[in-house]
């Protein structure tokens, strides 16, 4: 039984969000999608800041919004904590009073609320910053105060909107590890909204990926990383992705091009995915069995970690990762014609 059980339907002009989503107690679900996919709209409807057009939101068996049935419960009467993207710490209150704000508004006596707040600040390692105003805090500290403030009301549902987006790379790494620990301790449901696949893969038990207001893929991190189902997801996890018709080991990707895959027994529409590092480049047609090889033209070259990522056009568009040494040896440059090859065993095919 899910703690959060929602079907969010929101019409905004020509855009429609249609998102069924459930989160169990103690579970962390990441809602991942490109800008404009409807992530923020989803968060706002769950928090009660935006009404649903249709569908429902139920949290801990309490109906919060169901347009067909009743008026939405206002945000202040939902058991939901939100960590906003830019935190929105109240600038006129100290870190302690920011965290105590929620308990105070929920009727806890001042001294008790402050004691609770001090406890939460201690848990996020900021006991010494209790009296600091938000503008005196670093980005990472502000993020932790925002988390403490959201958790201090002990919400059934914790919503995090791009919680690490405002941080620099180094702080992000530390804060992500700490956030992971706090999310693991949170007994309620957690919904994390992000466009960063790394945040989603590291922090969430399960991923829900939306594009244009609809769910395009959902599952655990391993499955999504291995078997992307849209170009957006493939780009997120760094794979070449194609769709074609399978006939045993052959998958026809276009009228003129087919690829041999390791899996057998496939039929009908399938996806084929392989990593850029699985693509080898040759100056002339390679010989050897079990290789898929095709003539390609180099469209672009970018640095990608320790490798060069080569964008190829030809019968299929593909990305290939080669070492700088290999690139120099092959005289790779935009416009040059090469042969690309992928071993059947390094491809992965799965039903569409």
């Amino acid at each position, binding site marked *: 039984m899910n703690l959060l059980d929602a079907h969010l339907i929101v019409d905004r002009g020509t855009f429609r969000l249609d998102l069924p989503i459930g989160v169990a107690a103690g579970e962390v679900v990441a809602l991942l999608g490109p800008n404009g996919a409807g992530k923020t709209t989803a968060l706002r409807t769950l928090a*009660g800041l935006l009404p649903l057009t249709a569908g429902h939101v139920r949290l801990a068996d309490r109906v919060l919004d169901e347009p067909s049935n009743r008026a939405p419960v*206002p*945000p*202040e009467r939902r058991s939901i904590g939100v960590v*906003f993207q830019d935190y*929105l710490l*109240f600038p006129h*209150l100290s870190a302690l009073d920011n965290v105590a704000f*929620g308990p105070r508004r929920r009727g806890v006596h001042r001294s008790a609320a402050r004691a609770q707040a001090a406890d939460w600040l201690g848990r996020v390692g900021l006991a010494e910053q209790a009296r600091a105003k938000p503008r005196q805090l670093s980005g990472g500290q502000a993020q932790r105060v925002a988390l403490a403030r959201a958790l201090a009301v002990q919400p059934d549902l914790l919503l995090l909107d791009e919680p690490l987006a405002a941080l620099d790379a180094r702080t992000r790494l530390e804060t992500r590890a700490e956030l992971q620990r706090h999310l693991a301790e949170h007994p309620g449901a957690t919904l994390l909204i992000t466009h960063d696949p790394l945040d989603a893969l590291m922090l969430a038990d399960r991923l829900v990926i939306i594009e244009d207001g609809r769910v395009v893929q959902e599952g655990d991190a391993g499955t999504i990383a291995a078997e992307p189902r849209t170009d957006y997801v493939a780009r997120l996890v760094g794979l070449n992705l194609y769709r074609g018709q399978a006939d045993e080991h052959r998958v026809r990707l276009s009228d003129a091009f087919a690829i041999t895959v390791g899996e057998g027994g496939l039929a009908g529409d399938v996806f084929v995915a392989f990593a850029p590092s699985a693509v080898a480049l040759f100056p002339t047609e390679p010989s050897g069995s079990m290789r898929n090889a095709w003539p390609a033209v180099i469209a672009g070259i970018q640095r990608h970690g320790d490798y060069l990522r080569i964008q190829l056009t030809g019968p299929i568009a593909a990305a290939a990762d080669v070492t700088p040494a290999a690139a120099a040896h092959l005289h790779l440059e935009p416009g040059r014609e090469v042969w690309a090859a992928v071993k059947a065993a390094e491809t992965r095919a799965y039903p569409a």
Partner: protein
Amino acid sequence: MRRFPLPLLVPAVVGLAFLVLPLLGLLVNAPWGTLPERLVEPGILDALRLSLECATLATVVSLVLGVPIAWLLARVEFPGRRLVRALVTVPLVLPPVVGGVALLLVFGRFGLVGKYLDQAFGFTVPFTTTGVVVAEAFVAMPFLIIAVEGALRGADARYEEAAATLGAGRWSSFVHVTLPLVAPGVAAGAVLCWARALGEFGATITFAGNYPGRTQTMPLAVYLALETDLDAAVVLSLLLLVVSVTILVSLRDKWIS
């Protein structure tokens, strides 16, 4: 160093002279020799006290009524909001004397509201100290409303959303989040309102009359003195100038910066 563009510099200097010279005129023409004995004349201090009290009361009234109006205009979508905003600013463009006449028509003994106040409570507003406060608040409140509405629009409404997710209802989030965020704007608006109320003349003399000790504020006393004794008018003006500038400067140091 970059040169100042003359088309900006010249009008700025001329404008400054235009604003400052009249004040200099007051200082130069003041009867410095007889100043001490003139200042302690009984009528003068009464008028000053009345001016300060009425302007302060009018500011309090404007705060109590005007801040909620500003909140409505800035935060609540309702039909006719543009019309309400236009109505609120009418006292700004209305000649104060016309405002005074309008107040008489409403709060006068036979006015729309005054009639009932008179019948039910035997309470008359015009030509009383209360009338001075009413006239000043009528003229000065729009300044406060405009300043506070501007501050509210400038304040990020998402802080109120954050407060709502933490369990604060609209009133609670207004008191604990919105008001502290716009406090500098409210203070600036109150100072502006107070200064306007202190200098109010037209609506006051029309609606409240010119009774020494009851409705004769400093601007009225200045005007009356002008008819008989120019030196007395200059002394009164100087006193009003010094008191208001002192109060504004001390408030600025305390609130605005």
